[in-house]
């Protein structure tokens, strides 16, 4: 395999990552080829010693996904990290997917409930003075504020749980990947 072909396959496999990250990774391997050739090896020898560019790309994607997640806790970073780690094939997807979907579905349901409670609180708060609320206007306002606070804190707790779950999945995937799928496969 020539250096160009190797780098092209690598770039293809990294598609979807930020362009600066891809450029940086591809530059690392291009330097490796240049150093190898300078040391008197052929491009084919260097490519063989490097291994399969597609497998390397999968590993690098997982690393990049985890890094993005460790830098910013956004929903898209979470999704990126989860899919990248799943892409390693480290986690038995067939077994894990139903559980994962169940957990995600339940979390989503709780989020919707928390938001609904928040808005219900808002409605009670706003409408309390105008309708005949049992207990009077003051209790309507306090009940509204209470419901809104409850909804907001439920959402906050759910966010913490979600972050914890993504971290656990990433940790699990990395652990198993390191132990079960060594990148040190014999160079066949």
């Amino acid at each position: 395999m020539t250096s160009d072909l190797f780098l092209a396959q690598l770039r293809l496999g990294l598609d979807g990552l930020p362009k600066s990250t891809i450029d940086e990774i591809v530059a690392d391997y291009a330097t490796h080829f240049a150093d190898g050739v300078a040391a008197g090896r052929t491009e084919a020898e260097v490519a063989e010693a490097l291994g399969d560019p597609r497998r390397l790309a999968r590993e690098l994607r997982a690393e990049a996904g985890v890094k993005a997640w460790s830098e910013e806790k956004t929903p898209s970073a979470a999704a990126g990290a989860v899919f990248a780690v799943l892409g390693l094939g480290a986690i038995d997807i067939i077994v894990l997917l139903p559980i994962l979907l169940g957990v995600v579905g339940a979390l989503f349901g709780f989020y919707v409930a928390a938001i609904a409670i928040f808005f219900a609180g808002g409605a009670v708060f706003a409408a309390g003075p105008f309708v005949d609320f049992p207990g009077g206007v003051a209790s309507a306002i306090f009940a509204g504020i209470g419901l809104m606070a409850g909804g907001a804190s439920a959402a906050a707790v759910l966010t913490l749980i979600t972050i914890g779950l993504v971290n656990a999945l990433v940790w699990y995937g990395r652990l198993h990947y390191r132990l079960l799928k060594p990148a040190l496969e014999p160079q066949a």
Partner: protein
Amino acid sequence: MPETIQIQLKKGVLELCVLALLSRGDNYAYEIASRLAKDIDMGEGTIYPLMRRMQTDGLVETYLVESPSGPPRKYYRLTERGRASFTAQKAEWLAFTKAVEDILGAAA
């Protein structure tokens, strides 16, 4: 499956070996990769995902050095955390290998 055991062992000590190499002086990836490929027979490509992971974990950091020929070269050096991790992992490794040696010695 002696082959499998060897692969697992190498994989496990790869990070330790990189930490050890860098503890003796800053280095660049090609040099690290060729040392490890020669001495413990690992795939050279493995070094780059590993270096990125160690960077994410805050064990190493990079800096650029102007090169007389070609573009600037990227060097890796240990962070404080990397140094601490090396000390801890080395102690663990020595204790572990000593225990295994004792058992192997007793069995001989």
